[in-house]
């Protein structure tokens, strides 16, 4: 694979990742969120595959398969099942801040991401390193989604977005972390999502819907 | 060794003669004041010797004691009169020679005075009646307010001398007559005089001749005492008046006080003391005629005034010493 192709593919997948992230902030439909998340998962897998091909690392290719399965298929499926039983509230109706404000926040957070990535960018001028701010920005967007969306599943989506961001940074800066850690991390994420999924359905039984605003019984 | 024996002998002589002179004089002093007052008010009065006659009568009467009173009814009067006698012995009214082991320290004098006050106040409380408690309460309030003035004026007098021993102060005044008329001294003595008037229950703080219970202070405390108990209480109070008047007048006019023991000196001292006391008593009685008793709750104002005088005296003494 030539250097140019590599750079272009890398930039393409990075761009796709960021686009999906912005769209997640923009859109309100849970279904769309899940689909965007799946796309993002595939983009991430693609990014890893590109890196693997470029560095001729079989390990990274295996990881790419793992990522594709987990983030592109399994997790979106889990989320889709979580929303499937709840046709009445498949939309995030009133986020805590309106879409315009959220998008303004997105631009601010992107700037912040570039600002804080300076030390990483100083590591070298490779294409991979240059894309690191995208990962940072995704993580920050994930946080934004987490703290402004009312629906339980939205929080899951925010969490996964955050996780994707971190994974992106990990792959771009270091070609991932040691495999044992990578496996542990993936397992952890999967388990967390499963736990939250179980809790979501319990919340729905207890509260009638999955609106987190009702959950303020524990307070001082 | 001889010297110290000599000092002790002359101190004992002075102390004994002070006690004797004051025991004799104090009732006469009261008689004199009553007579002066009576004359000024256009009455004849009972005569100078009347207090002595009253005393004899009381001592021979049967003391009555209500059920439920404690032994304090008996002990309190004895303590009061003893403390007054101790005051007579301590204060340098005739001579400035004192026991080496018992200087006439002003704080000791004041504390013995207070011991008497406490004895009297407890006698009043022990009566177990409304009036006894009332008198006691008022008496102690006045004492409490008088004490700052007394101590502060004492302080003012001691600073120039550098000692709180009365005989040193008197000697210093004899040596340097000009210091008697210094502002420090005058202010302090004025304050002390007011304090003495208040402490001994004279007008305008208390009316010794009142028969209206609600205005009584001293009389309310002794209402329940009779016979020799009452006699002791009266003698004790008279002695206090005598000693304190004597002290103020000695501080104001130190001349006549003997600095060592001679027969002539003693005679002069006794005569001078009699004269000073007579003048002081007459003056006090004359002023009292013109005064009315103030309300009890105006007394603090009077005390505050005297306190300020004493405080000014202290401040002045610092300025003088500094300058």
């Amino acid at each position, binding site marked *: 694979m030539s250097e140019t192709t590599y750079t272009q593919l890398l930039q393409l997948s990075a761009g796709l990742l960021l686009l999906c992230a912005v769209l997640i902030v923009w859109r309100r439909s849970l279904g769309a969120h899940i689909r965007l998340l799946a796309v993002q998962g595939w983009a991430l897998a693609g990014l890893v595959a590109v890196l693997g091909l470029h560095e001729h690392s079989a390990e990274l290719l295996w990881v790419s398969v793992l990522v594709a399965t987990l983030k592109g298929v399994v997790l979106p499926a889990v989320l889709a099942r979580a929303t499937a039983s709840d046709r009445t509230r498949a939309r995030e109706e009133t986020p805590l801040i309106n879409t315009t404000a959220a998008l303004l926040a997105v631009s601010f957070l992107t700037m912040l991401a570039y600002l804080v990535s300076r030390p990483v960018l100083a590591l070298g001028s490779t294409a991979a390193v240059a894309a690191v701010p995208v990962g940072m920005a995704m993580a920050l967007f994930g946080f934004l989604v987490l703290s402004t969306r009312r629906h339980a599943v939205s929080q899951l989506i925010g969490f996964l977005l955050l996780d994707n961001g971190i994974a992106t940074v990990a792959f771009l*800066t270091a070609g991932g972390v040691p495999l044992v850690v990578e496996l542990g991390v993936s397992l952890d994420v999967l388990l*967390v999502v499963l736990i939250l999924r179980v809790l979501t359905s319990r919340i729905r039984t207890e509260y009638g819907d999955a609106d987190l605003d009702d959950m303020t019984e524990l307070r001082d | 060794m001889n010297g110290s024996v000599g000092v002790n002998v002359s101190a004992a002589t002075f102390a004994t003669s002070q006690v004797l002179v004051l025991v004799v004089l104090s009732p006469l002093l009261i008689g004199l004041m009553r007579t002066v007052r009576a004359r000024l008010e256009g009455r004849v009065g009972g005569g100078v010797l009347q207090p002595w006659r009253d005393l004899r009568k009381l001592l021979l009467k049967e003391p009555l004691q209500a059920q439920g009173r404690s032994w304090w009814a008996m002990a309190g009067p004895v303590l009061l009169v003893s403390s007054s006698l101790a005051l007579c012995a301590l204060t340098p009214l005739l001579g400035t020679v004192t026991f080496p082991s018992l200087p006439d320290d002003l704080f000791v004098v004041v504390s013995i005075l207070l011991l008497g006050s406490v004895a009297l106040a407890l006698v009043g409380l022990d009566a177990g009646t409304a009036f006894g408690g009332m008198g006691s309460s008022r008496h102690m309030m006045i004492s409490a307010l008088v004490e700052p003035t007394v101590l502060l004026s004492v302080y003012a007098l001691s600073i120039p001398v550098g000692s709180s021993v009365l005989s040193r102060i008197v000697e210093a005044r004899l040596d340097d007559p000009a210091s008697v008329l210094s502002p420090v001294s005058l202010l302090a003595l004025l304050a002390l005089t007011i304090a003495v008037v208040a402490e001994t229950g004279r007008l305008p703080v208390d009316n010794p001749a009142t028969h209206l219970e609600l205005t009584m202070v001293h009389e309310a405390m002794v209402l329940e005492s009779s016979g020799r108990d009452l006699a002791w209480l009266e003698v004790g109070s008279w002695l206090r008046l005598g000693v304190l008047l004597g002290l103020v007048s000695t501080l104001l006019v130190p001349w006549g006080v003997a600095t060592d023991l001679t027969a002539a000196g003693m005679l002069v001292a006794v005569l001078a003391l009699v004269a000073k006391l007579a003048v002081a008593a007459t003056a006090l009685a004359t002023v009292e005629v013109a005064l009315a008793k103030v309300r009890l709750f105006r007394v603090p104002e009077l005390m505050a005034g005297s306190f300020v005088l004493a405080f000014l005296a202290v401040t002045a003494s610092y300025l003088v010493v500094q300058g």
Partner: protein
Amino acid sequence: MAIPVTVRRYAGVVAAAAILCAGVALDVVVRQSGPVTALGGQLRADALSAFMLTVVGAVGLTATWSGLRVRPNPAPTNAYAVLVVLFLGAMSLGVLADNLGVLWVAVEATTIATAFLVGHHGTRRALEAAWKYVVLGSVGVAIAFLGIVLLYAATRSAGSPTLSWATLDATHPALDPSLVRLAAALTILGFATKAGLAPMHSWLPDAHSQAPAPVSGLMSGVLLSVAFYAILRVQAVAAPVIGTGLMRGMLATAGLLSLAVATLLLIAQRDLKRLLAYSSVEHMGVLALAAAIGGPLAISAALLHVLGHGLAKSSAFVASGWILETEGTTRIEDLRLLLRRRPGVAVPFLVGVTALLGLPPFSLFFSEVAIVVAGVQRGMGWVMAATVLLVLGAFAALARRVAVIAFGSSADEPEQMSDSAPDWSTPGPRFPLGVALGTTAVAGFVAGPFAAVLTDAARVLGGAG
């Protein structure tokens, strides 16, 4: 899958006892022959790890043993037994890992293990607590992961990709300071979430108040400390590269903020278990300040504090569980005159709180004094002044609320309650609480090997000064 009753009942106790024995054994071995490694270097026990393992074991034993419910109460469910053991295992893994990544996995695993323990009661409140706990905890720890990734990137660009502190400590690769700054800041921030430091502490009172008492005791007693241990490790790794300024600032800020938040919310606290939870926030604040101070004295004091706080807090939580069981509520307003009515549960609770208040002879007194002394010696006089004033506030607030529980308020007529005889019974074994609180009371006075273990453990982080 049915686990025999006896196994279910005693699984946690046995596991904790095993950890305690292993910890003590490691203490001895490490002290004699230096760090021990296993599993191809993935696990490594130095003095600090061994000490932390001992603490995990000791606190675990206290919580699980005294949390045993006397018959005829039903034995815990399968899930409960398994999860408690997993929880203990994850914490042990965390302190024994020689790898920041594995440590991270272990810390995240504790979240997973405890999620259902927090929600164990199955009520709406328990559910809410579990949700908040998982979301806030995972998100926080995710930030730590970002930091770890960046640290890894730094080591990679320095030519020796590793996350093992043994390696880092031995080789001192020339890491890029500005990248390590970012990495350390993010890692500490992330682990601070699990350590319950303000402003990331919000999950803590909810989770602690809803979990079964022994689990609350474990979480408060050791889970927080394990996260704190992670912070210490990160600090030790980063300090040689970037100095202590940034981390000291962060930790001191977080410490003071934790103290302030804890004090504020203790003042008018209405729930007994939340009261204890905020007390944990307070103590974690103190620990954060100790870490900010650094140096042998502060760090060994912090480790002593970890031990004392762990034992005392788990005892207090277990006692609060007994109170809940006998009184049916943890609302402070409804729990009055407890010392008069139920001294059996009130006395261990009060002794535990006394220890937590930092009064002698309990070891928390020594550790707090030492931390303040060390702080002033290191030129953090104003910070220490603020610290002790906030600790004073927390003391007064906690004492005031506990007084209501134990002695009632002035509105209570004591005579009303005096007709019934005091009840000395307890719903669980008293012995382990006695041992735990006794240990806390004498720990401060024990020199010899124990003091040496503390010193060695602090020396492991020597670079953090």
